[in-house]
């Protein structure tokens, strides 16, 4: 149960009793904020896109959502809780392999998501325990070690009967349920969208709750937070677990959509991509994670179109420009625009009067 926000309390208190004919101040326009309109428009576009786009674009959009979800996981840990992680490719890989191993044992694809999430939560939580002793760059190194170890663990011979070793595990694309007039790519898109929306809502409500405030307090003023009675150790490890859960579910979805998992699919570079997406989208911004997903998928393709030979350099240049122009990420840019644009100022003036 979340405590009401301060301005909500102010509005709930009725206006001072005046003449009977004067109407009670109605919180008009509260629902149709710019933010909600943007979200609504986004959802409408997201729902209709697969009905008009080619299968390949649908496939790419599904991947954007998956990377966005993975970046959201990282955001919960780094953006909201201040714990740096270069190891999220490991959680993504664990989630992916969980899905692959279960599906090759004929488990239905939708059951693999909660399993991947649960396993990654446990792994994340367990990793979070020793991580309590580490701060900043030392935590970064520890998570880097996890990311580097993952491909080799996946190739480890004794584990081969389960992981398929270097050959990896191919997966079959799931068919839509009988009676649904969608092709497999469209179905996977909607399935991913549904999972994404549920998890976005979960993240948003987590962040707005008391737990969320505790998590952010630990990020902002760890000593003050502990002094106020917040159990920092518990919240930090729980956040690690939840963060790993989110990225693990993304990994499971990724495995289903790409239809293949192999040890070389989850290198350390993937962690770096997630970090890039996190920063570009906006650290500490939930919708920003999706912008990060768009960046991580499409900008390398864009760079390749400009020049195949220099695609890496061009990607670097684009990234530098983005960071320079939007130092707080896309979310920061939106906030800035909302604050500066004239009509936004008018709305705020009207609201405060």
């Amino acid at each position, binding site marked *: 149960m979340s405590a009401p926000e301060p301005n909500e309390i102010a509005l709930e208190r009725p206006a001072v009793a005046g003449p009977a004919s004067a109407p009670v101040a109605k919180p008009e326009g509260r629902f149709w904020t710019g933010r909600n309109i943007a979200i609504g428009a986004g959802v409408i576009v997201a729902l209709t896109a697969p009905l008009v786009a080619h299968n390949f674009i649908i496939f790419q959009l599904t991947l954007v959502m998956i990377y966005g979800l993975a970046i959201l996981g990282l955001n919960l840990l780094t953006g909201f809780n201040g714990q740096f992680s270069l190891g999220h490719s490991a959680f993504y890989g664990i989630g992916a392999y969980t899905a692959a191993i279960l599906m090759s044992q004929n488990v239905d694809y939708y059951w693999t998501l909660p399993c991947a999430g649960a396993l990654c939560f446990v792994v994340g939580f367990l990793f979070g325990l020793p991580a309590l002793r580490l701060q900043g760059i030392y935590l970064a190194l520890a998570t880097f070690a996890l990311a580097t170890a993952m491909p080799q663990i996946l190739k480890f011979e004794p584990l081969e009967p389960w992981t398929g070793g270097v050959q990896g595990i191919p997966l079959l694309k799931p068919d839509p349920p009988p009676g649904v007039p969608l092709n497999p790519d469209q179905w996977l898109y909607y399935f991913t969208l549904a999972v994404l929306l549920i998890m976005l809502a979960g993240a948003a409500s987590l962040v707005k709750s008391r737990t969320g405030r505790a998590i952010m307090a630990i990020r902002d003023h760890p000593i003050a937070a502990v002094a106020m009675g917040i159990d920092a150790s518990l919240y930090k490890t729980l956040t690690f677990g939840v963060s790993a859960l989110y990225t693990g579910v993304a990994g499971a979805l990724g495995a289903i959509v790409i239809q293949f998992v192999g040890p070389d699919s989850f290198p350390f570079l993937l962690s770096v991509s997630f970090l890039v997406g996190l920063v570009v989208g906006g650290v500490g911004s939930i919708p920003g994670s999706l912008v990060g997903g768009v960046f991580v998928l499409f900008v390398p393709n864009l760079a390749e179109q400009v020049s195949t030979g220099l695609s*890496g350099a061009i990607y670097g240049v684009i990234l530098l420009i983005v960071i320079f122009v939007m130092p707080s990420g896309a979310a920061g840019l939106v906030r800035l625009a909302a604050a500066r644009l004239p009509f936004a100022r008018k709305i705020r003036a009207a609201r405060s009067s």
Partner: protein
Amino acid sequence: MKQITRRSILAAAPATLALAAIPARAAKNYGPGVTDTEIKIGNTGPYSGPASSYGTIAKSEAAYFRLVNDQGGVNGRKINFISYDDAYSPPKTVEQVRKLVEEDNVLLVMSPLGTPTNSAIWHYMNQKKVPQLFVATGATKWNDQKHYPWTMGWQPNYQSEGHAYAAYILQNKPDGKIALLYQNDDFGKDYLKGVTDGLGDKAKMIVLAAPYETTDPTVDSQIISMKAAGADVFVNTGIPKFAAQAIRKAAEIEWKPLHILASVGNSVGATLKPAGLQNAKDIVSDFYIKDPTDPQWQNDPGYLQWVAFMDKYYPAGDKTDGGNVVGPCFCQTLVQVMKQCGDDLTRENIMKQAANLHHFRVPMLLPSIEINTSPTDFAPIKQIQMARFDGQRWQLFGPVINGQAPA
């Protein structure tokens, strides 16, 4: 003028029927990506990332197809070669190949590079029935026409090379202690299996099989361990960057084993020069392609043709890099397949003709090596020849060895 009588009509009938039949035989049958003037061919390769030294193969292929187009194309059709970067990352390969097949509508995908990357698209290509032709990797699993009828390799597979190395060792150093450097993935383990199987019950000659990852900065520690283990035979199956490091380190620590270098890493330009030519003396390797730095081919027509091609169409390409030789060879094989297809350019016929190559030679293959395929044999090249490096060039020796066709 002859009168048109009934008899003359009857006499002309067989000729007319014959004439009517000919257009039917030459009927145009087009798969996706084919028109009267163009054939779209797809490809993916590592233009960036840890394997980017192999990106030159795709660049040389693009250049070679420009030559083919300048000479009028294949049966009057120009080749539109669409190649994308996959950075040697399997998920990226899936994305790029889906783009090629679903958005660009290519007829086939030619020589995608890498074992993990090809593994990722293997099922997709066979499910969609798109030819995955002449994959640029020697993994043995590509020649499985029974289960994967749309996938075909090209180069001798790694296991048969491993067998050849094992045979060479048993012949020349039957009491040796073998150390093996291999890449910790499909490709490296294929070599390891080939050597181990080839040694049979002498497999315990292997005292140390040391893996490396493509993300490792060096393999120095592996080489030091090999010397420490007392190995006097070294099978070096690293890709150029790591093969070079291994050669250099072995020379540095004064370890002089019988050094067998695998064909993937035996390029003078990509491996031996960075390693130091004097350090590479007496190294033995296997070849199926002419090494462009070998003076014995200086006046060979095939070599001269290749140099002329590089000078005109890919002047920035390194003429000492074997990758730039193998690319045009893939192209020439594909051109032969398309020529054999004639106007029946469907995906089915492409696979049928690819499995129908007999005694086909391309100019840069060693003189006694041929390409042969059949519906039960999807391994185009099975023969190799050994060579020794004398400090300046590779000297071929011995007979052509017939690698076993995979089971």
